[in-house]
């Protein structure tokens, strides 16, 4: 018994692709993506994640979604975090401890100003974007 047909899969893909591009994830248009692979967790990514959630609540920000992802490859700079928001370039920050997480919320997300000393380049082009 098939659970999903071919057509249904294709439709699902289209929908999700559009969602990712427009970043319409349940009405939230700002994404904080925290690297939660073993290297990240060993460097304290779980504490960083909590710091983000706490600060977002403290600042009463409801249009920000915090997501997890795998390893970006910058293991020497863990915890790594990517910030995506409309009107700003996508930025990857490295060595994000809880203190820096708070700074990111206040300066980058709220103040739209980048933070010194933590920015990392993208490791490579995204081959899935044609």
């Amino acid at each position: 018994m098939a659970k999903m047909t071919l057509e249904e899969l294709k439709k699902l893909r289209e929908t999700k692709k559009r969602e990712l591009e427009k970043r319409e994830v349940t009405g939230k248009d700002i994404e904080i993506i925290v690297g939660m692979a073993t290297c990240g967790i060993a460097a304290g990514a779980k504490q960083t994640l909590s710091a983000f959630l706490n600060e977002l609540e403290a600042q009463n920000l409801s249009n920000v979604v915090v997501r997890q992802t795998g390893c970006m490859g910058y293991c020497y700079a863990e915890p790594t975090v990517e910030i995506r928001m409309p009107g700003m370039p996508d930025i990857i920050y490295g060595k994000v401890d809880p203190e820096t997480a708070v700074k990111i919320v206040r300066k980058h997300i709220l103040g739209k100003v980048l933070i010194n000393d933590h920015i990392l380049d993208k490791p490579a082009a995204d081959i899935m974007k044609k």
Partner: protein
Amino acid sequence: MAFKNYVLVCGGTACQSSKSEEIYKNFISELEAAGIKEDVQVVKTGCFGFCEKGPIVKVLPDESFYVEVKPTDAKEIVAEHLVKGRQVKRLLYQGEETKKHAKVEDIAFYQKQFRIVLRNCGVINPEDINEYIARDGYAALEKVLFQMTPDEVIQELKVSGLRGRGGAGFPTWLKWNFTKQVNDSPKYIVCNADEGDPGAYMDRSTLEGDPHSILEAMTIAGKTIGSNKGYIYIRAEYPLAIHRLEVAIKQARELGLLGKDILGSGFDFDIEIRLGAGAFVCGEETALLASIEGERGMPKPRPPFPAVKGLWKKPTVINNVETWANIPVIILRGGAWFANIGTEKSKGTKVFALTGKIRNSGLVEVPMGTTLREIIYDIGGGIINGKKFKAVQTGGPSGGVITADYLDTPIDYENLQKLGSIMGSGGMIVMDEDDCMVDIAKFYLGFTVDESCGKCAPCRVGGRQLLNYLDKISKGKATRDDLAKMKQIGAAMKRASLCGLGQTAPNPVLSTLTYFEKEYLAHVDDRTCPAGKCKDLITYSILPEKCIGCGLCARRCPVSCITGEKRQPHVIDQSACIKCGECYSVCKFGAVMRK
């Protein structure tokens, strides 16, 4: 308000030493002078990983990448690029248009990495199947189920030139084809996720970051060779990867992408996870299959190969995680696209775990043919603490060392073998002047002796004898005759061991002996360790003329063997010294000598 532009000045240590601080200040003043301070933010960043061409300046949002920027260039960049919107072409990175890279439009020149295997790692949430699907996930499976015949899939793999990424480099299409042609059933698909090489964690990151790619690839293989059951054998020391796989399998089953009648195609396929139990030897394919069957993980002689008689003596395709991760992309983009990347005999990319005495340690995925120098210096940022490069070890306990003379070797299977090492699973450990080659060989032999299954005499006994000789050398108790005996044992192990573990266990020894013979002879003839690592051969002593008697070393000494009056030269009690090197590293006056 957000800024219109951002100027990112690379603040990595290498760039800083070439004046990136000055560049930063100049930008701020130039922007002020041009009156656009409010529109542009200047930011200092972490290391951009292109240190050979530093200082680096990147401009967002258009992603212009300027290299070898001098402080005086700030004025021009502000005036031309930021005010007028015209890039300063002479400073832009001019990439070498080599055959190594895929379509030029697809990648920016300066990025040495090309992420196929790691395409979704760090991008998607691995615990949400929808994100995988959104990025063309399971589209390759659709193609295989509804548009391609098994022979067409094999053909695509053949054109791609994909070779097994577990270390052996066997052509993947050939392995699948053999298994497909055997007239027996049932057939099995196995993923080798045991990843036992010390320092290697590429497979772990792939499974943690993109588990669905493996599930999709195994299902594709099942349809191609005629199998309905897959097993992922993963080491128990990877609990997070296991969890992510379990979540992925559950979600795939819920959507009907695993299980019966996938997508209405009539094809059934399901996957089970089996855990390893702490044996490196179970990464060897026949031992792995024995372990899944519930037997001791001991290798079997081949032939017969798993393609003919594998799991429960049935035809089995067994591939490494990284090999699997490449499959969906090859199906979607075509084998020709993949074959465009890499060298003539080694196509595609390879993920390396770059670790050791390197600034930017981590996972890097580069096209085959990238040189060691590019990886270590451009991506890796060079040696930390300003030390000198000594060698890079590839291939884990089965591999060898490569010296500075060969850093411009393009990486591929054949080249590394010619240098006396191997590609292996992708471990790449960088060593500097403080690493002793005898010590390195001893470390690897210690590992293989511990992990030897014990079935065959050459590995079980030979490994221990080799290790004992290395121990003697590191203690200054060996003779030249011992070196000859080591070569004799190494030859017997290579020729007569039953599996790859024993056959390649002597490699670290033989390789370091070849390239660093002088270092070995120093241990044997002179009873010294030039790198200052082998404890029995080094002494720490305090130079009275340099010691100011601050007492810091005495306070830090874990066995309290340093004595002395305040402001008087201190003395180390040699009989109690455990050679930990703490005094050597804390003395600010260079008064501790290591000999």
